């Protein structure tokens, strides 16, 4: 821990948010706000499809959805006006976030793919192995130097969670074909 603190000075990301970062395209902002607007319209129109109970007509199940739709439509429309006037949203800041970096779509795609793989494989290969794959895969995507260490940590984590959940809390996670022998063991652990 004796290393000197700061290293070379970084341009302070908190200081000059919008001007210093690479000019961001408005397109994404428009698409997102447009989707919110579309959602608002959908909520509003969809409210007409909600059946009203035949009796007691004053306040039906449509009133609140109408309000929600209205809020969404108005605020999303105002966001679009803001964007058109050049008021873009501030990127959210965080300790591990470099607001001046360009979006790394490849890493994002890798992580989403690993979660999707986890979803597909969980009940086939079982929790410990699926968790190991997810942990190892995500750590590798984020730049862990040795992927096999990440995979081993993930495997250990998967097993610990499996045993704690199954043995102590009584919640059984999918064991997968290789580990079906573990369950009776855990049950006897619980007594």
């Amino acid at each position, binding site marked *: *821990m004796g290393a*000197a*603190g*700061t*290293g070379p*000075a970084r*341009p*302070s990301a*908190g*200081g000059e948010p919008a001007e210093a970062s690479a000019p961001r395209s408005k397109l994404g*902002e428009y698409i997102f*706000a447009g989707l*919110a607007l579309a*959602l608002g319209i959908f*909520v509003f129109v969809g409210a007409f499809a*909600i059946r009203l109970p035949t009796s007691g007509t*004053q*306040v039906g199940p449509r*009133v*609140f*959805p109408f309000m*929600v739709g209205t*809020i*969404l439509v*108005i*605020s999303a429309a105002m*966001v679009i006006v*803001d964007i058109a006037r050049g008021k*873009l*949203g*501030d*990127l*959210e*800041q*965080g*300790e*591990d*976030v*470099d607001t001046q970096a360009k*979006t790394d779509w490849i*890493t*994002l795609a890798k992580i989403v793919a690993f*979660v999707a793989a986890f*979803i597909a494989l*969980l*009940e086939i290969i079982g929790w410990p192995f699926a*968790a190991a794959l*997810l*942990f190892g895969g*995500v*750590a590798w*995507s984020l*730049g*862990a130097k040795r992927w096999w260490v*990440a995979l081993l940590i993930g495997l250990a984590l*998967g097993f610990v*969670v499996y045993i704690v959940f199954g043995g102590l809390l*009584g*919640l059984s*996670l999918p064991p997968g074909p290789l580990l079906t022998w573990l369950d009776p063991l855990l049950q006897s652990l619980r007594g």
Partner: protein
Amino acid sequence: MDNILSLMEGFATALQPQYLIFGFIGVLVGTAVGVLPGIGPAMTVALLLPLTYTLDPTAALITFAGIYYGGMYGGSTTSILLNTPGESASIVTALEGNKMAKLGRGAAALATAALGSFVAGTIATLGLTMLAPIIAAWAVNLAPADYVALMVVAFITVGALLGSSVWRGLTSLGIGLFLGLVGTEILSGQQRYTFGLLPLADGIDVVLVAVGLFAVGETLYVASRMRHGRIALVPVTRGWRSWMTKDDWRRSWKPWLRGTAIGFPIGTIPAGGADVATFLSYASEKKLSKHKDQFGRGAIEGVAGPESANNAAAAGVLVPLLTLGLPTTATAAIILSAFQSYGIQPGPQLFTNQPALVWALIASLYIGNVMLLILNLPLVGIWVKLLQIPRPYLYAGILTFAVLGAYAVNFAVADIVILLFVGVLGYFLRRFGYPIAPLVIGLILGPMAEAQLRRALQLSQGDLSALFLSPFAAVCYIALILIIALGLWLRRRQSRLERTLAAAAAADTSLSAAVNQAWDAGERPTDVKTSDIRVQAPAEEPPTEKGSRRRGGR
């Protein structure tokens, strides 16, 4: 003096060994997630919501309250020691505390933050003890229309005042309200917005939304623009016993008390949360200090005041939560849903229907504060180690626990699919500057607001004017306008202050970096008693935008 008696009974419960252990686990986990970047108390409580299936309500709520309080303590450690700008709630602490740490006075900054948090947390809990029963007794008489007014106030203030723009906040709120609509409507039993999909028929679980937004969304966001390279920590020298000099104490105790006085009232009203409180405390300390020239360069008052205000506001948030059932932060909203999963509705009846539970909870807050002081003063070294976890493993772990939490809700893979979708939504919300908290509050408070609205309109037989004509509701709407106006004005001042501060920070980064490289911590010429810093501080040019570019951006 009924209250004191009830509180004593609460202590009798909370001091039982098993509750002490749950409280300890809570503050321990809370501090850990407060320290770690990327996760916070809101997400942690959401991940642990399935615990409510196995634990009794007192144990679960004591754990969650511990996480809530612990998260507030842990955050300051990160902002003081980590050399990167954090979230805006702690930005003033980050600026002053980080500067102090670079001057070799990190220990004093950590100590004044922890002690200030303790003082503020304890006094504010005392305030909660006194105030809550009174408000609850008074709130029993509130009619549904009054609740509608309160919820509208909460919605609009949280939506409009959090985040960078009013309309983005309200859009986020609207998305949350929509997600709250999905599912089976209680009165007529029909499905709304479920697209005929079976997993949506019971509504979208709060766990999935909260964990998806906070854990998956945050991981994706960090992954998209991760700060690479070494984790730059400012080393702390000296043992914890000699952390604060006499001078530090003298300069700290008043800011602690002032911060408490500012933070607690702001926490109790839904006015944008702790952000406003820390900023106000910082501004007032700067105005009152005899060491104005040190502000922006490591003034201890600038850590002591805002940190106290932050913690006092956190305790203040519990007042409307427990007495009115009104959450004003994301974490409070998730704690509310923990209450609901036991079939308990926080609100005025809570103190009469569940006195044992609520007083044990309040007593546990006092105990938790003491535990947190011990955890944070002598043991800060452990938390520093935690800060050094390599980020790939940290975020891989967060994601693994996120899918575990989502799966554990119903043991259905479909829930992980929903989690992933919500996570992608969370990513885009962050990327385009939409605040997350209004969405969570809309999701949890929305269904309650709908129920109250329909009840109110049923009573008035559909007459909309009844919503505004009750005296209390009218007062609420007038207060709403005032809060919004005041909040927007404060926010403008705040962002101006942050810009100046950040410019000042950038201006002398190169100087302190040079000092840090030339000497080890503890041996730097700048590492001296506070009183001497004023004399030694080199005369610097005023922090102008131009100066910061030239000197900071090499």
